[in-house]
């Protein structure tokens, strides 16, 4: 009998939604937008974390050479780099190659670079320290040692960027979760008011159901299911749109100068299940608040 009743409740909830589809569509649309915004933020964070992890697993250094170093000086620098423990020389980028890379990165705007009378970009050696404890590498010390070599103008390494990035990332996360919390409240507010409206529109029907002996649960459960369905459908549509956007932007890998290729990943399973679950819970909570106000004890 429980299965029979629940089947009946589901059918009533669906039929209620179809009968008042406009108001439910508006509510679902709002939920979709809210979940989409939060999901986009989560996607951004997930990818930033993945990139940081990728970068953090190896330390890369760019050793920039002075313009007038000459071939002899370049070879001396090369010998010094070969002597560094756990260092792998990825390659040498000449001034011309550096300019060519920059032109490619600029794309259609490369014409802007034509204004330079001389090539301002330095030549560089690209180093990677792999399979080592990056934290104990004392990158700053290595940087100072390399910069003291004749012919080396400057040394930059990826950890400097990562440290700055992690700080910014923490701020973004905190801000994002605050906004996410506000979006959750918005979803709760929307579903509460939608269910209250549908209850009010059906007050005559509710009176008749109580008249013929329906329990409070029999009357309330379909409204709770309506709220849950709103949350579920809104959440699923949002995830669908998010996946579509992800599919479009992941068609081309991202390049950033000397940094490795960045791949865009979708939300992990726990994240998108969590988002869908949160949508359903918010819809259900909205229904609970709505019926709690409408069905006072003793009424």
């Amino acid at each position, binding site marked *: 009998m429980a299965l029979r*009743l629940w089947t009946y409740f589901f059918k009533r909830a669906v039929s209620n939604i179809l009968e008042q589809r406009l108001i439910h569509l508006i509510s679902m649309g709002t939920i979709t937008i809210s979940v989409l915004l939060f999901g986009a933020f989560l996607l951004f964070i997930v990818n930033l974390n993945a990139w940081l992890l990728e970068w953090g697993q190896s330390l890369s250094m760019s050793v920039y050479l002075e313009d007038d170093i000459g071939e002899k000086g370049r070879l001396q620098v090369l010998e010094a780099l070969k002597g560094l423990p756990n260092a792998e020389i990825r390659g040498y980028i000449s001034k011309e190659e550096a300019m060519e890379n920059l032109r490619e990165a600029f794309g259609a705007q490369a014409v802007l670079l034509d204004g330079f009378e001389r090539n301002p970009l330095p030549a560089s050696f690209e180093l990677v320290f792999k399979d080592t404890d990056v934290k104990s590498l004392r990158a700053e010390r290595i940087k100072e040692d390399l910069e003291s070599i004749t012919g080396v103008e400057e040394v930059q390494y990826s950890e400097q960027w990562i440290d700055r990035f992690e700080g910014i990332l923490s701020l973004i996360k905190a801000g994002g979760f605050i906004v996410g919390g506000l979006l959750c409240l918005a979803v709760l507010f929307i579903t509460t008011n939608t269910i209250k409206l549908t209850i009010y529109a059906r007050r005559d029907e509710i009176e*008749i*159901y109580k*008249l*013929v*002996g329906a329990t*409070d649960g029999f009357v309330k459960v379909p409204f709770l299911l309506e709220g849950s369905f709103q949350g579920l459908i809104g959440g699923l549509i949002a995830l669908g749109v998010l996946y579509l956007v992800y599919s479009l932007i992941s068609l081309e890998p991202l390049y950033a100068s000397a940094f490795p290729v960045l791949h865009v990943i979708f939300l992990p399973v726990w994240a998108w299940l969590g988002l869908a679950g949160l949508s359903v819970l918010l819809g259900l909570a909205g229904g609970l608040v709505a019926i709690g106000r409408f069905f006072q004890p003793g009424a």
Partner: protein
Amino acid sequence: MIKLFNVSKRYGQNVALADINLRIRQGEFVFITGPSGAGKTTLLRLIFGAQRPSDGQILISNINLGRIRRAKLDLMRRRIGFVFQDFKLLSGKTVFQNVAIALEVTGERQAVIRKKTHQMLRAVGLSRKETLYPPELSGGEQQRIAIARAIINDPIILLADEPTGSLDPDITKEIMLLFRTINLRGTTLLFATHSRELLRDTDQRTIHLRKGQVVQEVEPE
């Protein structure tokens, strides 16, 4: 079957019922009469459990309505039918659906609901109008839908609050015949009315109310 002990009902300063003591036996057909504001509707609503008395106790089949939990009261309502003057039908649902509601709330199987509803509609003469909507039917037909819904669960008690109040005399006779048939099958019937035509020459027990008090009780000879 129905016992009222010192039952009163107040709405603020207004006394709707004052110190009512009544015994209604199983299978009785009782008229409750009196002018407007006498307390007829309040009395029926208290017996139905829609409201609680300010004082006193109401027992139905020895169950004290003031002591049972809300969920049990809902279940008890399935054994008490209620018919109103304004029918209280759902205009957006068909005749069939309006009657079937009373069985749906019990969690009954669809096949049984369909069978019983068809039978009930045939019994009240509406089997050919199952797919119509209440606004498409006459007042008498709508009241028959309401009666069908009220009795489909074989209630032990049927409460009728001015059920013929908005019907013409010919239709009223048909409806009264239906009520007598229901009563003859064993259902206790409390019928609230202020219609003198209905009370004229009646052989049923009649309770007269005035300003919330029982002023006269006429027992059948």
